[in-house]
């Protein structure tokens, strides 16, 4: 149940990350359409509420809320690091940009 909750939190934060403009630029090179961004936000929030429900049902209010807090904090961190990793991998894959200053006159 812990594994399922954590995996769902990862998915939720991944969706929320994809819904931010900066990440969209980093990963896709351009912002996604508004509708897609909205959908991602709703989906991400929805999945997180689902996880909350699962944990509350499994462990009750006291333990469930604490576990939810822990899973979300950690999942956010993992998605954050993954986004950094993806972005830097992408940058390394691109050929070096030619800049005006280094062009031969």
């Amino acid at each position: 149940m812990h594994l399922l909750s954590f995996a769902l939190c990862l998915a939720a934060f991944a969706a929320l990350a994809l819904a931010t403009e900066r990440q969209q630029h980093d990963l896709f090179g351009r912002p996604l359409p508004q509708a897609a961004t909205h959908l991602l936000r709703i989906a991400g929030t929805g999945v997180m509420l689902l996880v909350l429900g699962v944990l509350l049902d499994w462990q009750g209010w006291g333990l469930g809320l604490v576990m939810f807090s822990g899973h979300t904090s950690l999942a956010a961190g993992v998605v954050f690091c993954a986004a950094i990793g993806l972005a830097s991998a992408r940058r390394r894959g691109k050929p070096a940009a030619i800049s005006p200053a280094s062009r031969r006159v």
Partner: protein
Amino acid sequence: MTTDNVKRERAQRPAGRGIRQSMSGLHIWAGLLMGWILYAMFLTGTVSYFKDELSQWMRPELAHQAELPDPALVAQRVADELGAIAPGSPQWSMRLPDGRTNSVYAFWRMAPGEAGAAPGRRAFGEAAFDPTTGGKVTARETLGGDFFYRFHFQFHYMPVLWGRWIAGAAAMFMLVAIVSGVITHKKIFIDFFTFRGGKGQRSWLDAHNALSVFGLPFHAMITYTGLVTLMALYMPWGERTAITTPAERQQLTAELNAFIQPGKPGGQTAPLASVADMVRQAQERWGQDAVGRVTATNSGDSTARVAVARGEAGRVSMSPQYMLFDGPTGRLLETREGVGAAAETRGVLYALHLGRFGDTVTRWLYFLVSLMGTAMVGTGLVMWTVKRRQKLSDPERPHIGFRIVERLNIASIAGLSVAMTAFLWGNRLLPAGMADRGAWEIHLFFAVWALTLAHAVLRPARTAWIEQLWAAAALLALLPVLNAVTTDRPLWHSVAEADWVFAGMDLMCLSLAALHAVLALRTARHRPKPRAVPAKARGGVIGGALEEGRS
């Protein structure tokens, strides 16, 4: 005053500091002044979530506990032993072993007049007991993981109250830092996933923000609940006003913990009834593994009482739940399972801080998010120097304030890792029969820490960082080797036996060694950006190329 006048006045007012600006200043000051103490509290607190495992690792003579021994039998054995070594003790209390401990920790109040018990003052004895024999453990004398735990809220080498006051002051500063940090963080949702790498101060800020915001529920909770655990010390006036008689004090104590207090001894000896039976009754009520603690008062006397208290696992509250038995007859006198609303609130907040209620996954979540909090404090401290280094008028000769912060950062952050690992090295290397061995492990910790401070002052700052991070990495990586050489519980043996305490410890050391190595490498590789060239010198290919040098 008309709205127009108000607007005009506001426009004419000189641009002052908004609330974000003032909160930023407050955040920086609050964080900086207590940052080094807070980092130490955070790191030692983080490892304390595994203090029981650490204590096991530090007593390798005690065999791996594959199966939990019958708590009822353990309680009986240790009760008999305590009756033998502390006869006439007005109060003793033992913590029963669970899945994370393989020894029974017990303390007892010295009988009045006993050696060490000065008149009017209560003196305590404490020891760890073997659950299978009931006798004192025959393992090296060590404080174990409890050293880090106690350091976390009362430090060392000072009266306990001073330490707790300093910890409380630091926690109050932390609370101010959290609230001001949230207010000053302008785009807390928009910038939730932002990280701009390779940009110096900005990157440090992004890292600091991420660590703070992701763990915000935890950081706020841990700081506030930390203050609550010692609230009777920090804000005693309500209690002083309301609790005036000993009877009221006893009532208050009963709301807070299961340490039943002794009455006057009757003078007639009467052996204690079967403690095992009492524990079994509690097991019937709460569950096989749900019994946590057995406390007895006036054991061996006709007025003896025994309280069997529920364990902390599975419920988010430290408020006492216990069954009270008559000592000589074993008759159940009372079952206490509820406390008042205020006491229950305090019980929940205290439980949240200690995190003892959780299962293994929850404990790991506590540990990892707490580690994020530690890094939050660390990145904040480093960011202070990164930001101000850019503004130094002469980078070769920074002002004294900058130098102090810079050197203290190195010793409190990298140096603490070195010192904590040295503590574990001491545990393996100090001779078993040495006098005051436990105290000397601690002296070693502080000696090494002081050395890292000296090293940080004497070496160039960047070199000191790199050297101390590598030292920590080396000590951590070699600790499993030292363990394999000095004990008969090397990593491969622990894995084969499914001894996850020892195996986990070795693997954790290797992971932390890798972390420190990565930090050392990144610090070594980091080339500070060339200072911004004044506009008139820039221009042409050369000036432009300097800008392109950044990847």
